[in-house]
């Protein structure tokens, strides 16, 4: 099996497992289902998103996701899994106005599903990378767009207000007792400017693969800082960085799994009574 195909398999399995635990097994889906069944005014009377439909797609997604992980009927069940994923995310969007996981994983996951129908694995990986890059670059671009108003964002008040509103709940404050606002003001300002520059510089990944080595760790560091300052929701995008794991490591994992499988076959065979 070639490395690109192995890598696509690896991404499908890890992302599916992650989404299963993050979304499908989340108690939040049961809560939403309970609220909708009891006619709470949260889904704007949507006729599609009902309490029973939520539970149905949750469990359908769990079954489809499990089959995808074990590569059983992946061509059929990966689209089913994606559909269930979109449905649950849409219900969450209607309820709380947040896209969450949908924003990042929908398009790369569709490319992964398409890749089941093609041998252009390298091309598929490229498109997934494009999705990753686009996500960050457009996030940075949006902050300085339109350009005549970019300075308003750079003032940093938006981020300062966000950090301040979540400070008491943040790990930095709760666990380490660090008060962000006791830090010099330029630190926050520099952080705001640095985050925009970093988001925009992710585009370099498309032009030179060498830049992955320092841009991706910086992006992960950026997520870690956000996590510590009380916005852990964004941490869910860090799993996207798995696409940059070098092929040699994935080959090693595949080899290890093959060895385990072979060893298990040997052990099972030795346990059978000889005739």
């Amino acid at each position, binding site marked *: 099996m070639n490395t690109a195909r192995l890598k696509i398999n690896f991404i499908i399995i890890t992302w599916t497992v992650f989404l299963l635990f*993050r979304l499908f097994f*989340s*108690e*939040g889906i049961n*809560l*939403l289902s*309970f*609220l909708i069944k*009891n*006619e*709470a*005014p*949260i889904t704007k009377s949507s006729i599609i998103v009902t309490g029973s439909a939520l539970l149905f797609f949750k469990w359908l997604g769990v079954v489809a996701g499990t089959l995808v992980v074990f590569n059983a009927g992946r061509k059929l069940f990966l*689209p089913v899994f994606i559909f269930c994923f*979109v449905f649950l995310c849409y219900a*969450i969007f209607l*309820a*709380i*106005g*947040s*896209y*969450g996981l*949908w*924003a*990042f994983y*929908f*398009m790369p996951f*569709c*490319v992964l*599903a*398409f890749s089941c*129908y093609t041998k252009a694995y390298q*091309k*598929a990986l490229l*498109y997934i990378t494009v999705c990753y890059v*686009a*996500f960050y670059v*457009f996030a940075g671009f*949006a*902050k300085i*767009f*339109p*350009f005549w*108003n970019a300075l*308003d*964002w750079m*003032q940093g*008040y*938006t981020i300062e207000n966000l950090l301040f*509103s*979540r400070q008491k*709940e*943040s*790990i930095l404050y709760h666990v380490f007792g660090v008060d962000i606002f006791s830090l010099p003001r330029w630190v926050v300002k520099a952080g705001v400017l640095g985050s925009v520059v970093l988001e925009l510089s992710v585009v370099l990944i*498309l*032009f030179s693969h060498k830049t992955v080595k320092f841009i991706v760790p910086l992006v992960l560091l950026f997520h870690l800082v956000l996590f510590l300052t*009380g*916005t*852990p*929701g964004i941490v869910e995008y860090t799993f996207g960085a798995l696409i940059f794991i070098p092929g040699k490591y994935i080959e090693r994992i595949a080899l290890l799994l093959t060895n385990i499988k072979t060893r298990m076959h040997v052990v099972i065979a030795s346990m059978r009574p000889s005739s």
Partner: protein
Amino acid sequence: MSSNFLRIAKSVISFIIIAHVLLYTSGRVNFVAAFSITCIFCFVWIKFFFLLQNKETISLLFLCLFSVQLAHVVLKRTTFPFSNIGMYSLVQKEKKEVPDTRNLYDEREEVVSTNSGLIVGKMDDNESKIVTRLLKKNDKKIDSLILLYYPGCAIK
């Protein structure tokens, strides 16, 4: 690589100029930005679609899904899939007074739901986020149902 870079740079500059002209004339930041970017993705998407060897029905399903997504962006004028697009509409130009947040507390007066659900550990992060955002709505019916779902808890 350099010819590719130049080609992409030209496209990006054209996109920026066109988007700014459109913005200057129409003033609708979210709509223009989200629509333009989604169009670019449509192009990439369709290009990939034509690479497929077997264009089976299931692939068409994905194109339909993507069309639904596009329609969602255009009709609802939201910013999906780039939730930060049109961030300008969220920009705050001065320091604000932070309103008191409402959270869920258990019998021992310990907070159960926060935006940083992970630090509490009594709810998963997704659940905590949903509860926190729902409590922000200040709706009596939602509050009472949440309390019914989490017996023994109180909202403060």
